[in-house]
């Protein structure tokens, strides 16, 4: 039986007078793939930061694995930021980046159990051959593979991703979702990701949260991504032809 790993009740976040998130309610069970969809400024990144314990919320309650954000065993959760926000001038090789996900510290030396786990993760995502390349020399798709390896190397129960397809080409994007689905089929992990692509959300998700500061809808893609919900979230939908395929 699937268990609840994430429960949000009436979550609100205010910055002074400004409401960023208002009354968000949803529950996520294990082994599910959740997409968060919404326009820019909808509060998607803020929601992720609340879950990671990086931002305080104003009211409501949030429980992850039965604990408050920030009090959860960090080995249970992996976070994949947008690769375009990463400092690629930092002197690092790919395997160091993966080991940092295992150790939750930057590695001084590359040996031991952490290295083995990192190599296995890189092997799993088909990136073992680039383990010793500088991150500055990797393409967007290669770096994203390394980041996926980093996120799965410690076998987390929840992977939170912020626009994982941003900055990579169409082939890389297709590979990315295949990797995620492969990992999910081999583990009981839950994946929660922000995406701007409604088509991707529809195709890969078990549940979709449509957000525009308020919760517009939450449910299976066919229900959550209905035209009326998208109009409420985005104001208009004419610019996105992918909706026609729903």
């Amino acid at each position, binding site marked *: 039986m699937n268990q609840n790993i994430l429960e949000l009740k009436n979550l609100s976040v205010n910055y002074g007078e400004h409401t960023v998130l208002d009354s968000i309610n949803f529950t996520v069970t294990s082994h599910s793939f959740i997409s968060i969809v919404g326009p820019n400024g909808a509060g998607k990144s803020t929601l992720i930061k609340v879950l*990671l*314990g*990086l931002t305080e919320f104003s009211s409501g309650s949030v429980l992850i694995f039965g604990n408050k954000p*920030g009090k959860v065993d*960090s080995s249970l*959760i992996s*976070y994949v*930021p947008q690769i375009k*926000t*990463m*400092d690629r001038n*930092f*002197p*690092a*090789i790919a395997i*160091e980046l993966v080991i*940092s996900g295992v*150790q*939750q*510290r*930057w*590695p*001084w*030396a590359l040996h031991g159990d952490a290295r083995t786990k990192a190599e296995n993760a890189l092997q799993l995502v088909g990136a073992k051959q680039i383990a010793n390349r*500088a991150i500055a020399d990797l393409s967007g798709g290669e770096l994203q593979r390394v980041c996926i390896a980093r996120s799965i190397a410690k076998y987390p129960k929840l992977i939170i991703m912020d626009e994982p397809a941003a900055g990579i080409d169409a082939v890389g994007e297709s590979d990315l979702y295949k990797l995620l689905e492969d990992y999910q089929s081999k583990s009981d992990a839950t994946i929660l990701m922000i995406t701007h692509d409604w088509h991707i959300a529809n195709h890969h998700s078990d549940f979709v949260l449509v957000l525009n500061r308020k919760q517009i809808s939450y449910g299976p893609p066919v229900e959550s991504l209905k035209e009326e919900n998208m109009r409420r979230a985005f104001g208009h939908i004419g610019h996105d032809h992918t909706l026609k395929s729903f």
Partner: protein
Amino acid sequence: MLELLSLPFMQRALIGGVLVGFLASYYGVFVVQRGLSFLGSGLAHAAFGGVALGLLLDSEPLWIAVPFTIIVAIGITWVKNKTKLGSDTTIGIFFSVSMALGIVFLFMRKQYSVDAFTYLFGSILSVSYTDILFTSFVVIITIAFFPLWKRWAYSSFDRELAQADRVPVLFDDYVLSVLIAVTVVVSIKLVGIVLIAAFLVIPAATARLLSKSFSRMTVVSIIIGTLSAIVGLWASYLLDVPSGAAIILLQACTFFISMIFSSAK
């Protein structure tokens, strides 16, 4: 060279040079990688305020400069985290205020401050055994705090990722800024206030050109920082020029040679 090593002041200068060369090049990697090069200048000028206050009070300037610079370092970190101001703006404010205080203190002293020249440009004659003892203590603290390297490195790479992995980045920022402040103060007598920023930055920047990983960058920076301090002090004695300038010019040569070498690869 052997004759040089038999001179007590030179022995003190060389031991001091190795110690501060190690400290500055170790902390320099974080300064460079976090884009905080201006912090070195800011803290050096804060130290000038402390040194000037020490001269005014007729006490050992470094004992006043250490707490003075630590307070400024904590102030810079606090303002940076509490406001939306950029670090350059925050450092610039503290930099100017400390410098202004230093000028006022020297003016109030109402006598020609020959010591001030030493503190501004560095001198191999100025290092005392007390300085060496205090600097050794800072080196021991640095080695004892080595496990923090992994946390500082992680948050230097990506602050948000480190926070998500429960690294106490704010606490670590304060510890790092205090240790950089103390490093700046203990380096003053050899390198001089004017050149300390370069002393922090150049070995680390050179190491960055030669390294693919952050741990390697740290090791290479320490080697460059320590060796350049020894050779620079030797050159300072032979050429009779201020030690700070000799060390920095040597480090600059290493940087440009490394740049040519790394561009050619």
